[in-house]
């Protein structure tokens, strides 16, 4: 059985697709067969971030409608042969995704894959709903900024009441906070909410902090998930996040700005 992870946020532009691409690659690099699915029907972009946009033949909706098999639609990643991408459709039909269709695909993928990463669209419409509905774990990507924190809280309410686990009275979805675009220097100046502030408001388990980093744009420019840029701070932050998710004990970094002892002390929470 696969573990289904939804990468969600409510708000747009906080780094859901960047995160989905990075953690899917990270899990696959750790030896777990992983599929990453783009749920943003009509605004497909995961393919660009993964650098496979020219290899898209069939998509998610084609599989749901029986126009292609899952194997025909899955694209094997060029950097890692344990990673597969299922691109979103570019159709304008808002009802292209159905709960039964998505459920069936996830069930089929579960037989063969260890992890399934669902890249949610922004908002709380159908695509976002279906991306989180079947999830076991939720990665809530949040920026240290008022509108993002508020939308994350709203998303947490939806995860707790509208998911399959909630509806069937199962153990709730495990929720994790990924705080992205973090600038320790601005936090020190009192210009940005701190990790502790955001955690206090959302009461979420912190999986990791991703610093504001030039490497993220560079990675998307070239279509390589930022986690493969092992020298970059954001790449290392995502590697840590994947390791922590898999149960490794990694002290938090990138919270205090300077590397070394200080970061370890502040990140030990």
């Amino acid at each position: 059985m696969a573990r289904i992870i939804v990468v969600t946020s409510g708000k747009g532009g906080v780094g859901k697709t960047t995160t989905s691409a990075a953690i899917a690659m990270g899990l696959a690099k750790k030896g777990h067969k992983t599929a990453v699915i783009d749920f943003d029907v009509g605004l497909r972009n995961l393919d660009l971030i993964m650098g496979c946009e020219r290899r898209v033949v069939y998509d998610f909706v084609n599989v749901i409608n029986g126009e292609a098999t899952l194997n025909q639609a899955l694209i094997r990643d060029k950097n890692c042969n344990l990673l597969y991408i299922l691109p979103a459709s570019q159709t304008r039909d808002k009802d292209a995704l159905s709960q039964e269709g998505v459920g069936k695909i996830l069930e089929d993928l579960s037989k063969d894959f260890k992890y399934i990463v669902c890249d949610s669209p922004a908002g709380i419409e159908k695509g976002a709903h279906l991306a989180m509905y079947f999830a076991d774990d939720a990665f809530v990507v949040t920026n240290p900024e008022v509108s993002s924190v508020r939308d994350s809280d709203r998303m947490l309410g939806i995860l707790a009441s509208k998911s399959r686990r909630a509806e069937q009275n199962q153990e709730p979805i495990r929720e994790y906070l990924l705080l992205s675009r973090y600038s320790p220097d601005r936090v020190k100046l009192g210009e940005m909410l701190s990790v502790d502030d955001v955690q206090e408001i959302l009461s979420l388990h912190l999986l990791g902090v991703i610093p504001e980093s030039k490497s993220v744009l560079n990675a998307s420019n070239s279509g390589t998930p930022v986690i493969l840029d092992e020298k970059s701070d954001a790449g290392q932050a995502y590697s840590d996040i994947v390791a922590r998710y898999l149960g490794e004990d990694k002290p938090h970094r990138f919270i205090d700005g300077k590397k070394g002892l200080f970061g370890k002390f502040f990140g030990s929470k």
Partner: protein
Amino acid sequence: MSLLDYFRTSKTSSASLAKERLQILVAHERSSRNQPSYLPQLQKELLEVIRKYVNVGQEAISVNFEQDDNQETLEVNIVLPDYHAKTP
């Protein structure tokens, strides 16, 4: 205290303002999120029944739902007008 610290504490930081605003907003939104979905309908129907006997306005009735760890309370508050004018 360094000179830098002096400037830093001399005015409220925008981050602490953000935190304060968020705490209030999030607490408010969470309390309304847990309300049962039948509340607005209940309020509407209660109002209709009361109006059969007493001439009250929309704002005269408030329905509040509160949830503690082990009990749920539904509080209905109706403000009657000064003299009980019967509806025509």
